[in-house]
């Protein structure tokens, strides 16, 4: 391999795999700052040495090893100045003992360890998401801030707090033991789902970065699934793929939301749909599925229909009923009501929605009134539909949703 090819290889590895090297170094060094520094020094060393000495047999292991020795050098330098703390002393001794090269697969697993660490319940929930994006995915604080519409300084502070907690309270870098795994996996999946939704919802922020968030969430779930083939991990991956498959169809040229029933189904990504459907089948076959799998199954039924009219609403209502058993939420009940309306006619759906609205929980939820307006319109009651849409508009906050409701009101007036 010639020199320029070697340099290109280092750059390529940096793009794709630097977070793996970083995750490994974090565990070995037990310190985020040391690891970040060591990772960069290792890549710098590769840029110098590989063009001269040729590509190592296992480049990732080489980088980890180089990073480790760079860190060790740094620790020794500090020692000379007599400022070595006891935990650094211990670290230097431990590192000296770990001379052997790591296998490729071991390095793959390191990112998963780091996800569990960043999503540890001992870390504040508001810190888990940015910490995971920064440390596991390698997004910059500015990118995360722009996606979440938060001040970079605020986010940076949260990330620093999270890292300090991991270091000082010694939150371990390991995959939890079997007894704790289900609960800990739930936390990881909900962080990933939050990341995905932030990237998927068209509420605000830079479109390109939001897309990155969705991609990262899918990539993280693939990683978790590879190492923990749990049905709910399959379900979450399927759910995200099935949602993502509609990305091109779900907003129009003005960036406004297009409802599922109005979307151009020919631009849905068939490859993602196929993969999503296969995952749903695998998850359902285990009979140990839950929240994510059921939502993915609903999404898969929609994906199967060539048009809204051809949707298997019987199956969708049945899946929503199961979902309600797993999680008794008024929003799921509302979605079920809309599906019942599609199956049995608007009257049946209206009956359920009115019942739900009497229970107060949905009384401030704009989508409940918007759904009610839609069903009233379909059942030929434009006056009442108008009132419901107006009420929805008075509660809706996000610009695309407000524009959608205003358009519906204008249609009714025409």
């Amino acid at each position, binding site marked *: 391999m010639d020199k320029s090819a070697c340099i290109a290889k280092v750059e390529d590895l940096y793009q794709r795999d630097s977070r793996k090297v970083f995750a490994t170094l974090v565990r070995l060094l037990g310190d985020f700052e040391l690891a970040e520094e060591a990772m960069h020094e290792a890549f710098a060393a590769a840029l110098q040495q590989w063009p001269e000495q040729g590509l190592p047999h296992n480049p990732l292991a080489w980088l980890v090893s180089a990073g480790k020795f760079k860190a060790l050098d740094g620790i020794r330098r500090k020692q000379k100045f007599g400022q070595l*703390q*006891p*935990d650094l002393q211990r670290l230097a001794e431990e590192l000296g003992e770990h001379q052997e090269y790591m296998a490729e697969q071991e390095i793959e697993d390191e990112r998963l360890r780091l996800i569990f660490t960043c999503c*540890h319940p*001992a870390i504040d929930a508001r810190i888990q998401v940015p910490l995971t994006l920064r440390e596991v995915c390698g997004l910059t604080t500015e990118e995360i801030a722009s996606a979440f519409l938060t001040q970079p300084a605020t986010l940076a502070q949260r990330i620093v707090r999270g890292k300090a907690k991991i270091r*000082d*309270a*010694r*939150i*371990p870098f*390991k995959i*939890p*033991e079997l007894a*704790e795994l289900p609960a800990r996996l739930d936390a990881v999946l909900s962080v990933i789902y939050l990341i995905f939704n932030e990237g998927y919802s068209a509420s605000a922020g830079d479109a390109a970065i939001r897309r990155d968030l969705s991609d990262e969430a899918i990539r993280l779930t693939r990683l978790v699934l590879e190492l923990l083939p749990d049905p709910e991990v399959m379900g979450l991956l399927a759910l995200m793929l099935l949602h993502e498959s509609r990305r091109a169809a779900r907003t129009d040229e003005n960036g406004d939301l297009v409802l599922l029933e109005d979307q151009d189904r020919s631009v849905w990504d068939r490859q993602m749909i196929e993969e999503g459907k296969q995952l749903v089948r695998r998850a359902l076959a285990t009979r140990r599925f839950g929240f994510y799998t059921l939502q993915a199954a609903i999404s898969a039924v929609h994906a199967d229909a060539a048009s809204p009219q051809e949707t298997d609403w019987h199956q969708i209502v049945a899946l929503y009923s199961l979902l309600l058993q797993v999680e008794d939420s008024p929003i799921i009940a509302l979605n079920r009501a809309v599906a019942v309306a599609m199956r049995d006619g608007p009257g049946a759906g209206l009956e359920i929605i009115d019942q739900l609205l009497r229970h107060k929980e949905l009384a401030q939820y704009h989508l409940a009134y918007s759904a009610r307006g839609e069903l009233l319109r379909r059942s030929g009651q434009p006056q009442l539909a108008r009132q419901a849409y107006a009420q929805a508009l008075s509660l809706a906050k996000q610009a695309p949703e407000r524009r959608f409701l205003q358009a519906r009101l204008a249609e009714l007036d025409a």
Partner: protein
Amino acid sequence: MQYMLLIYGDENSWTEQEREECMLESMKITDELAAQGKYIAASPLHPVSMATSLRVRDGKRQITDGPFAETTEQLGGYYLIDVADLDEALAIASRLPPAKKGTVEIRPLFPLPEPN
């Protein structure tokens, strides 16, 4: 890594029998920890009515009867343990009987540099 487990709870919520069972269970756990080399110290505390608080201001001692702050849940005891990491500390804390009634706060000890 050393952690202090601080046991908080409403000290009036325990029946005599519960207190006794808690004591027996706690002693069993401390014996186990000692056998594994993870035990440093542990003790229940007298109720906060037995507490005395002291402040030194302008060189003068101010002594008051009672705890640092009046709260609905009080510090009722502690464990000092030496374990690998937070997960191990959490596993031990979750076995302590008061965790079911009150709260166990887990605080890592701040390691001081060893004296030369």
